[in-house]
C-alpha cells in the first residue's frame, strides 16, 4: 500500500488543479491504463475544484492498494453540503460568481465524479465533508 497527502486551500484559484495534475502524473508513471487514468484525473479535478470553491479547505489523500485499487479521499473542514440530493442533481449549483468566472459552477461536478468512479461515498456535516471515491486499476 502507498499513500500520499495533499493540501487544498480555500479560494486558491491560482493553484486549482495542481494536486490533480500531480496525481495524474504520478499514476501515469506507475503505468495506470490511460482510460482509467483519465477517469481518475477528471474526478479528482472536479473534487479538488469543489474543495476550493465550496469548502474552508482540506486534504486530499491518494491511496494505492496492492489489490489493484486507487482510492481518493477528499476531506474538508466545512461548512458541509446543505442538501446532498440537490447537489447530486445535474445543473444544480451554489457556486459564487468568482467560481463561474473561473469556468466552474455548472452544477455538473458531483454527478460527474460519481459517473467517473467505481465506488462513491459522500458524507457531510457542518464540520466537514468526506468524499471517498475508488477506481479499479
Amino acid at each position: 500500500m502507498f499513500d500520499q497527502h495533499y493540501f487544498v486551500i480555500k479560494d486558491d484559484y491560482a493553484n486549482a488543479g495542481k494536486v490533480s495534475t500531480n496525481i495524474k502524473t504520478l499514476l501515469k508513471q506507475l503505468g495506470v491504463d490511460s482510460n482509467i487514468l483519465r477517469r481518475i484525473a477528471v474526478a479528482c479535478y472536479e473534487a479538488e475544484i469543489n474543495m476550493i470553491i465550496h469548502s474552508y479547505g482540506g486534504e486530499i489523500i491518494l491511496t494505492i492498494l496492492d489489490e489493484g485499487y486507487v482510492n481518493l479521499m477528499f476531506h474538508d473542514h466545512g461548512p458541509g453540503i446543505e442538501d446532498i440530493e440537490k447537489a447530486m442533481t445535474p445543473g444544480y449549483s451554489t457556486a459564487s460568481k468568482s467560481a463561474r468566472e473561473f469556468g466552474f459552477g455548472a452544477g455538473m461536478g458531483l454527478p460527474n465524479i460519481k459517473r467517473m468512479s467505481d465506488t462513491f461515498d459522500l458524507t457531510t456535516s457542518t464540520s466537514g465533508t468526506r468524499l471517498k471515491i475508488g477506481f479499479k486499476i
Partner: protein
Amino acid sequence: MKIQEIASSVKGTILVCQDENADVEVAFASDLMSDALALIQKNHEKTILITGLCNSQSIRTAVMLDIKTILIVRNKQFNEEEIRLANESGLNVICTALTMFEACGKLYSLGLKNV
C-alpha cells in the same frame, strides 16, 4: 485537420505549439469547464477545446481530458505564466479574434464533428 489548417481557417495565430502533427477531428465549445469535463467522453486526443475561458483552468481541463489543442476565441490572450503551463503540458494553443459562434461555424463547415 492539422493545427496550421485550423489556425488559417479562423484567421488565428498559434500561440503554443508542442505537437504540430496533432490530428483534430472533433470539437467541443464551452466557457464552462465543468461541461467539458462531463460531456467529452471519447476521441479525447483528437478533440479541440474551443473556449473563451482564458485562464489556467482551460489548460488544466485539457490536461485532465488528454486534449492536445485549445482554441481561444474573442481575442483573449494567455499571460506568460499560462503560456508556460501550456508549454509544459505539451499543448497546442491557437488564438483567434472570431467569436465562438463564428469559429465553430468555420470549423464545422470544414468537416470537424461534434464530440
